[in-house]
């Protein structure tokens, strides 16, 4: 390694991402169900209870579409017309496929990718119990790239009730890590043990440093006052670790990114989580 590389590395490491709080607008909320009007009203009321304490929710204007968006096209058109700041819906809308829990259904899958508004994916009406959907006391934001993801943090902060706990989770995929280390182990010029130790430490340090700036920014700005910020930064099989964390901490709301600039399909981690954690509300950005 040349000395230029050495110093560049030091300075790149010193140039850290800092969290700057941004505004989360929740002026217009749209609820989309495939229920009849009465059931739809009850479902909407439950959502409103669930979201009590979310920043800016008190002054939001609610629009409910119950059974009016049978086709994906109709749903997208409705979203385009209303320009909501948040769309609330559930899996397998207008479909019987919810009996086979292997997909989200066409509506939710397309909606999360097409609309710019966050989608709050809730349990289906039959699973919408008080126990499952109570409040947003325990919110977890999950990502494999926390550092610099201010939008994700903004929404997670906004959706955590005062007095609640926000967990910022960052799990590095150990499968990918081991694959690269396997290659490093075959390159004589690189010391494998040193590479393992330093890369692992660096991968985990960056999100940890970012969490620290989040704590500082929230404290300095008086934002998120009364929110306890915790972090879970580790390596492992992402899906297993997140699932275990959600269950162990009895998370009320998961906040995650679903869009991927490189592909049309949902972000690699979001889809399996959304399919498997069917009873956990998810805010999909």
């Amino acid at each position: 390694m040349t000395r230029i590389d050495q110093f560049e590395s030091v300075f790149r490491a010193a140039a850290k991402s800092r969290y700057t709080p941004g505004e989360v607008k929740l002026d217009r909320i749209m609820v989309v169900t495939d229920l009849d009007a009465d059931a739809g009203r009850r479902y909407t009321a439950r959502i409103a209870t669930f979201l009590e304490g979310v920043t800016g929710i008190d002054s939001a204007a609610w629009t409910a579409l119950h059974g009016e968006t049978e086709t994906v096209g109709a749903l997208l058109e409705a979203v385009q017309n209303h320009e909501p700041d948040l769309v609330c819906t559930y899996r397998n809308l207008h479909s019987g496929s919810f009996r086979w829990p292997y997909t989200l259904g066409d509506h939710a899958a397309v909606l999360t990718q097409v609309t710019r508004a966050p989608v709050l994916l809730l349990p289906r009406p039959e699973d919408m119990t008080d126990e499952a959907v109570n409040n947003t006391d325990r919110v977890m934001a999950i990502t494999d790239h926390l550092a610099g993801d201010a939008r994700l943090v903004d929404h997670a902060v906004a959706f955590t009730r005062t007095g609640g706990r926000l967990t910022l989770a960052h799990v590095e995929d150990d499968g990918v890590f081991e694959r690269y280390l396997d290659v490093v182990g075959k390159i004589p010029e690189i010391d494998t043990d040193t590479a393992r130790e330093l890369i692992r430490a660096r991968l985990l340090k960056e999100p940890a440093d970012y969490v620290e700036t989040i704590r500082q920014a929230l404290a300095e700005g008086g934002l998120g006052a009364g929110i306890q910020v915790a972090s879970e930064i580790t390596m492992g099989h992402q899906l297993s670790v997140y699932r275990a964390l959600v269950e162990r901490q009895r998370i009320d709301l998961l906040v995650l990114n679903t869009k991927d600039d490189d592909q049309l399909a949902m972000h690699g981690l979001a889809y399996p989580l959304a399919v498997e954690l069917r009873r956990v509300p998810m805010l999909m950005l």
Partner: protein
Amino acid sequence: MTPTVLAAGAAAASSTPPDVPLWVTTIFAGLLVGLVLCLAFEEKIHAKKSLIAGVFAVISLFLGDALGLLPVGDVVNIWGQHLHLPVWLQGVDWPVIGIILGSSLFVDVASGSGLFTWIAVKLTKASGGDPYKLLWSYGVMTVVFSAVLNNVTAMIIVGSLTAVSLDKLDRRDKLLGFLLTEGLLTNIGGLLTLISSVPNIIVGTTAGISFMKFFVVAAPFVVVATVVTILLAAKQFGITRLADDAARARATAQVAGFDENEGLSSRAFFSFSAVMTLAFIVCIAGASALPVLRDLGMAFVACAFAVIMLVRYKSEVDRFYRAVDWDLLGFFAGLFIVINVMEHAQVLALIGRGLEHVLAMGDLLGSGVLLVASAGFSSVTDNIPLAAMLAKILGGLGTPGDSAFWWSVIFGANLGGNITPIGSASTLVAVTIIHKNKLPMTFAGFVKAAVPYAAVQIVLATAYLLVFLR
């Protein structure tokens, strides 16, 4: 065999030069030209400096001894002991090697504490991300680091930071201007102290110029040349202050993300390194006046500080030994041997006769011509052989220590490095960082951009020399 008095050095041995035929002198002069050409085309022939100098040292020694030019036999040390010390070992200027080895190790270990990166990041944050303030901060930092550390390390530290910080500020369009300016400033900073560059060490020690004397003479020029260079660069590359409060606030937020503590290995070692760096500068500066140190010399100071710093890494000092620029040290050793042989072969006397014509032009014209000629020569090949050769010749001609001619060589050898990218190691590093950042910069492009700066600096140096130093 007649013993040589070691204390008096090799110069004493050659004080009564043998009658060397002209054809022999011509052969050795040819060798010297060959060495200089090989060094100039080092990149083309894909050979390291140490090897080039080593090959010429071997040939010179072999021929020198075969032709009976070299004094052989025992030497007598200051205790009157007879030592068998090969003639080629006596040719090496060990104090110079000691200063370079000791200060390189010291700087390397001190860098590991994060001290210099801490200073660099602090300055970046203090600038608030304003490009104009950054240019001044980085410019002054380049000069100071070049003076305290060495040109190459200064360029690496400041150049690396520049690339990262301008990237963070979305100012990559200014990167070329910044890097070029910093490259040019390394050679100005290299003029500030006796130990800032190798030509300074070689010429300064030969002329008997003390550290403080060197600093007092060079500092005013360095300040003026730095200010002029930065002002010219700001104008040429359109580096101006940020226009409004919103832009300033955005830039401040962007550089606020820099964490100066990131590179710190430990707080205690950081503080220790800061204290030791200050102590190092004080001891080097006072080496000619302080008791004990004035006997042991600057090489002792440099090596002693290196040893003290290495105690921190006592079980892994080999890591720092590996990082020493052995190519540079090998090059010096080989070069000193070649020059010593050239002295015995009367090549230096031959060049000296030519130089006498320049010196005969008088203080005014002679020192000016010598400065410009030194700069021209340094621009196309390594300035170290030039400095070593001219120092030896000026010393041999009995030039007094306060003569302006010494300064002509010092200014010329340093500033000549700003004319071409191969003129100095630090400008070569600047070009390497430019290319690493995928910016276009050809040899001719560098010369075109740098020549106006170098011309202004050389004119300033000549004027300074003629007005204040003659």
